[in-house]
């Protein structure tokens, strides 16, 4: 059958179980489709892709200014600055081969506009153990409007391959 030409009168509308299944499957497909716009308006976790063009050098400069203005300390081991952005304000995070700077100190329940970009290759912003993941591209200021709902120390892992030191590209976010 499957490898031979079907008889002349092969056309017929689906019937029986086949029609029932197509109906069920279509309904399920439409439910899944409706879930995404529903969550967009009523859910709290969305990836809207808000972003602005930015030259990598210009972004590095903004991160440096932001760090200088809001620095509250320094990690004794790595020397990476610890920065506390104003609640409700802008925060900056730079990915580069192979580090995330600065370490951000945020407050639970406050909302921040977190700008993430790269100085060189593509990187992956992977917040652990929350397991929230976003793509970081050079030339794109990717803005996440982020509200931490839990406290503790969170690790940023790079999960986009960015060369030989990729697995060692680790950053930190502290939430109090």
């Amino acid at each position: 059958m499957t490898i031979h030409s079907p008889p002349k009168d092969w056309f017929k509308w689906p019937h029986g179980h086949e029609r029932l299944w197509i109906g069920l499957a279509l309904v399920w497909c439409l439910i899944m489709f409706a879930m995404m716009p529903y969550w967009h308006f009523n859910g709290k976790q969305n990836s809207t892709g808000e972003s602005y063009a930015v030259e990598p050098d210009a972004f590095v400069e903004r991160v440096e200014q932001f760090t200088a203005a809001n620095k509250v300390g320094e990690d004794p081991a790595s020397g990476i600055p610890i920065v506390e952005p104003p609640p409700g304000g802008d925060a900056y995070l730079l990915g580069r081969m192979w580090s995330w700077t600065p370490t951000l100190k945020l407050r639970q329940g406050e909302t921040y506009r977190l700008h993430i970009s790269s100085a060189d290759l593509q990187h992956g912003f992977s917040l652990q153990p929350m397991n929230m993941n976003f793509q970081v591209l050079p030339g794109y200021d990717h803005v996440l409007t982020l509200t931490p709902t839990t406290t503790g120390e969170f690790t940023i892992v790079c999960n986009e391959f960015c060369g030989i030191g990729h697995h060692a590209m680790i950053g930190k976010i502290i939430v109090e």
Partner: protein
Amino acid sequence: MASITAMSGPRTRKCDTTGLPVCLDAEFFVKMNAVSAVVFLLLGGIAALTLALTRWPAVHLLDSTWFYRMLTFHGVNMLIFWILFMEMAILYFAGTTLLKTKLFSPKLAWAGFGLMISGAVMTDYIILMGQADVMLTSYLPLVAHPLFYLGIILFAVGALVNIFNFFATVYVAWKNKTYGETMPLVAFGAVTAAIIAVVALLHGAVALVPTLTFAMGWTAEPDPMWYRLIWWGLGHQSQQVNVVAMVSVWYLMSHLTSGGVVLNEFVSRGAFVLYILFINLASAHHLLVDPGVGATWKIWNTSYAMYLAVLASLIHGFTVPAGLEAGMRLKGYTKGLFGWLWNAPWKNPGFSGFFLSLVIFGFIGGITGVTLGTQQINITAHNTLRIPGHFHATVVGGTSLAFMGLTYYVVPLLFRREYSFKWLARLQPYVFAVGIVLMSLGMSFAGSAGVARRTWDIDAAGIYGATSHLMLGVLGIGGTLAFIGLLIYVLLTVHAVLFGQKNHGRAMDDWGTPKDIAPAEGDTEARELLEHGKAPGTMVLVLVLLACFVVYYFANWKALADLWHVR
């Protein structure tokens, strides 16, 4: 059969098993492409073993340089070379034998094959020389040696030449009506795969040609976001070529091994057309947490326009087993809901390869794929091991396993040689399937714990606990088992092709086709079920699938709701 006599001549023969006409020119290129496929499968498989043994933390085999190099090598050899060579073999078979016509042009077939082989060798060489540690995706601004891109472009052009040759063959057959009024379903599926392949390969050209000229230092750097969008028009779409080729092989193997029928030609063909119309939107699956594209674009495209391509897969997921059920019932295996399934030829590697492929693709690959490709849920999955956990269940447990099952018929029918060590061949699909399922589950659970894909070492972060390490161990054990299954397949097939007993002039050895036990006038009860479009056993199976799907889907929404708020 007038059409068969019309095709007789010095460059044709009649198949001793099926009675179908075989064009000897096409047969030659089926063989060439299939043999190349198996060689690249072995190369990619060896790389796979080293990767599994590196991600297994207790073993951690390779150093970081060779891990990333082997990962690039594995991706390119498996996802491009093995699969596409096999698909070329399928096109040359389906375009000629199933349509009872001759190959349009052996010269074009040579040109296509030559381009593909030289491209593949060039790419593999430059990767092994350490000049292209960029992964399969080679995301800009990461840059490889120009020969890496040139090799892939040559390979793609070769594939396009073959596809043109296929279309020309189909056109000639259509004009001369060699196959009758309507094209057989499996050939229709092959045409679908070829159409999608053309669109995929054109995306590849658009993405890679400017990247090549950039790597040569001739042009400016293409935008990295633009590259991602266009590259995935190649990257994801070529996986849909695999899906369509695999579904066609399911229909073929269901018929060859168990006498499976087509319930409704219109439904099965319509589902193939849905693929052509909507599957090219899937590039979005990879950009769901990217900057540069908005929520509306993401939602519409990731759903393939309201999941109409998913609907196509759900339809095939019913029609293939239902066709099998009907075929088996007509043979007299009518007992209860699942008599047809228990009496299916489970010791026939052609059958077990196809049916395990169907189950793994549907229950693991399909459900995870649609869920992870949901716009918001992707936040919890992007670039974690959940992604390879998903696609190893589709491309490996699905497509590769189906192609392996197919091979157990290709070698006796076209190489006209029999497999030795048949008991081992009967075991092979199970070994491979168990290995892949274990590996896929290990990846998926480790990924759910946040472990990244494409990462040499997870301990530098110092945050992954016992569960992650255990799951990576499962990945390693599953991967090793799958490699053993792959190796058995390659060794048995190479042995059969070179030393297998010749079967010229007689039907191939039967792997175990269920005997027809229906009364002489046919089984009336089975015929009645078919008339009324009933496949009760399959209906139960697909309802179980739907229930699993619904539970997994909403469990993921629940997990998402526990995360920090983000817009």
